[in-house]
């Protein structure tokens, strides 16, 4: 497996912060040197942010009131 393939495979766990220190160093070294992977890494980071922002839908205010009404009444 070449380094870019390995980088591709480690990309998601790298972004999730679950790689070992040694693996993180290895990934960083590769990303510093390889603009092909660096471009894709940047895209993955942007994509995750974009997905998170795109699906935000604020809670309807009346729902909050309905939830509060479910509280146990004070004796």
């Amino acid at each position, binding site marked *: 497996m070449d380094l870019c393939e390995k980088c591709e495979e480690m990309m998601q766990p790298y972004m999730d912060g679950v790689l070992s220190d040694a693996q993180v160093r290895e990934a960083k070294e590769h990303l510093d040197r390889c603009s092909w992977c660096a471009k894709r890494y940047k895209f993955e980071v942007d994509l995750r942010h*974009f997905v998170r922002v795109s699906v935000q839908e604020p809670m309807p205010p009346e729902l909050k009131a309905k939830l509060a009404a479910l509280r146990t009444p004070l004796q």
Partner: protein
Amino acid sequence: MSESTPTAAETRRIAEEARDRVRFEEEALELSDQVYRVARRLVGTREEAEDLMQEAYARAFRSWRQYQPGTNLRAWLLRILTNLNIDRGRRQQRTPQTTSIDEAGDYFLYNKLESTAPEENPDEERVIERLSQDSVVEALSDVPHDFRDVVVLVDIGEFSYADAAQILDIPVGTVMSRLHRGRRILKKSLADRAVPI
């Protein structure tokens, strides 16, 4: 003192419990926006999300004593909510054909967007602009439930693998494999919805 009069210790205990319960309810309500954000993406419609939130909060307020103070309350609430969601039997969905997804690597979406760009070397800032926010909502709802639950908890709810495993009552290894596959299904679906040039 008659038998029916509570002792001082008992009165104090009742008062303490009431205080703990009020605190629990307040903390749970403060988290409701964050819980809703996740709940909304676990189900298809706003109405379903609202029903599920009310059922989950009613149950949480009833079983508040089972919550261990100091542990992750948002995760605890979402565990109740996902259990209710599963109980509703909304899981009769087929397992998707994922062969082609497994073959596509993680760079699949970028490669696809880049290869269909008008210029030879597209400005990478612009590549993501080929996706619309609406298409993300649609693409996510296309991801089958088992995979979507994990993607929603980790990528939108920002839960750790361990928290997601606890919420869904599945092993961490299953969280990882579903996340892996779920993200790829999402990317595939996004690629199909990319704004044409």
